């Protein structure tokens, strides 16, 4: 399966999905006008990738300094797909990078961990 790379812009994150190495990352900020339009192809790639896995260790690095409300909703749908893959017998580590004094980002990460218990949630504080 082909890797997916999308360069960052002011309002969209860098998407670097190295499917061949099972290393996926999202970095930057996310406030596109239409989050479904931006994340649609990304979700499709993930939906094609996850069923190909068998007892695989996948690492997902998320380092988003800011995301708007519609991106928040899409991110939750995205984590749900990874949680399903973990329930199906894979190992998914979610490295959740957040700026140390930013409670909102950490709280959302903890909610993701509470909702999707099959994910190996790993909060990583970034000191400014």
């Amino acid at each position, binding site marked *: 399966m082909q890797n997916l790379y999308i360069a960052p812009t002011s309002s969209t994150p860098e998407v670097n999905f190295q499917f061949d190495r099972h290393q996926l990352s999202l970095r930057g900020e996310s406030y596109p006008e239409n989050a479904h339009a931006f994340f649609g192809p990304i979700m499709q790639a993930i939906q094609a990738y996850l069923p190909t896995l068998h007892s695989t260790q996948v690492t997902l690095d998320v380092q988003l300094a800011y995301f*708007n409300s*519609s991106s*928040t909703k*899409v991110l*939750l749908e995205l984590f749900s797909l990874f949680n399903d893959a973990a329930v199906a017998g894979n190992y998914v580590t979610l490295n959740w990078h957040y700026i140390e*004094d930013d409670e909102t980002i950490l709280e959302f990460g903890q909610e993701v961990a509470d909702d999707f218990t099959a994910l190996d949630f790993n909060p990583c504080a970034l000191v400014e």
Partner: protein
Amino acid sequence: MSLTDFHRFKELARQENVVFYYTGYFSQSIVTAMGDSLRLRLASLDASQTARRKLFSVFVEMAQNVVHYSADHLSASEAADHEIRMGSLWVGEDDGQFYVVCANPITAEGVEHIRAKLEPLRTMTNEEIKARYKEKLRTEGEAGSKGAGLGFLTVARDSSNPIEFDFVEENEGQPFTTFYLKATI
């Protein structure tokens, strides 16, 4: 407008500690450019990381609300992307607290719809707003919503005081009412 009037306008903005003011058509690229400008201004101000992020969050939700919902539009009204709509947005500082005010035209039918959404948020505690936000995040979006239906809740969540809003009737013959929303960080 004479240059003296421009000077009065500029002086008033300075006296009122206006950090940023824009009025005109809003598109995503304008929101992004305003966001960059706002961030530069915020970097030079003495504000915590959390306060800056909350201010930026309120700014984006309000500005994108104009892009999606203002009644005065240049783009096709049924467009899902690349929308362009009319509004105004202020960021200012008052007694050491930052605020964002947004204004945009809405239709008469929009008034009660928005009031019904905002009025309950004024009396809810922070904990109640957070709980409502979490609940809403996990439910299907409502019909007619182009985002996640979480915009006003996000503004209320990131605001330290209850949000304020008003509807101002325009002069006779004007088809729209102006909707004002203010959040203090």
